[in-house]
């Protein structure tokens, strides 16, 4: 199963776990399985059907937007990281 690392403030929604093992053949399927397992995560990660604009997903240190996005294939040994963008002023 693919591992997804959970940002610190979202861990209350994963039972305190910093990583969650998920099923799925693609990044999109893996994220869908994550929010199926932990539905309270969904509003923090998604705005409607789309990932929130500040949410980045890295597959083994590579931004999936530079790969095939949600269609990027994942394997059991892979780790996905959810990393926020932040700006301000």
């Amino acid at each position, binding site marked *: 199963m693919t591992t997804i690392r959970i940002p610190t403030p979202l861990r209350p929604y994963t039972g305190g776990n910093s990583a969650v093992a998920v099923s799925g053949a693609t990044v999109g399927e893996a994220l869908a399985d994550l929010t199926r397992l932990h539905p309270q995560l969904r509003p*923090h990660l998604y705005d409607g059907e789309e990932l929130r604009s500040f949410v980045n997903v890295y597959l083994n240190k590579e931004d999936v937007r530079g790969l095939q996005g949600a269609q990027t294939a994942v394997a059991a040994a892979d780790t996905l990281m959810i990393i926020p963008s932040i*700006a301000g*002023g």
Partner: protein
Amino acid sequence: MLKLTKELHNEIKVHGAASYPHEGCGLLLGHSDGESNVVVAARPLPNVWPVANEKPERFRIDPADWRDVELEAMDEGLDVVGIFHSHPDHPPVASPRDVAWAAFAGYSYLITQVVAGTPGLSRSWQLLPDRSGFVEEPIEEE
């Protein structure tokens, strides 16, 4: 509540002063117990806002830098618990832009005022769960 040592707070203030007149920024590492974010290390990061002459009132952290800090923190048994940035010649109050471009609720958003290159007051903020604004949280200097 945000907890940090006086030495760490000073380190963050020094980074704000060194970044002046631009905004300085970085990540706070430590542990979160749900009630408090306890900071044990600060990682200053480049302000990568793309327009140089707007950096006195804008900051951006490269997500790739955040990713690297997250991996380092994991190796050290730490978590990213907050973000710090400076407000050159402006009060340390979260701005509408800070709200619009915030990350997740639950992080501490520490802002330090820098006046004419000298660091001043810091205030820390928590994003409301509905992302509609920030509320101030106490800072406990240990």
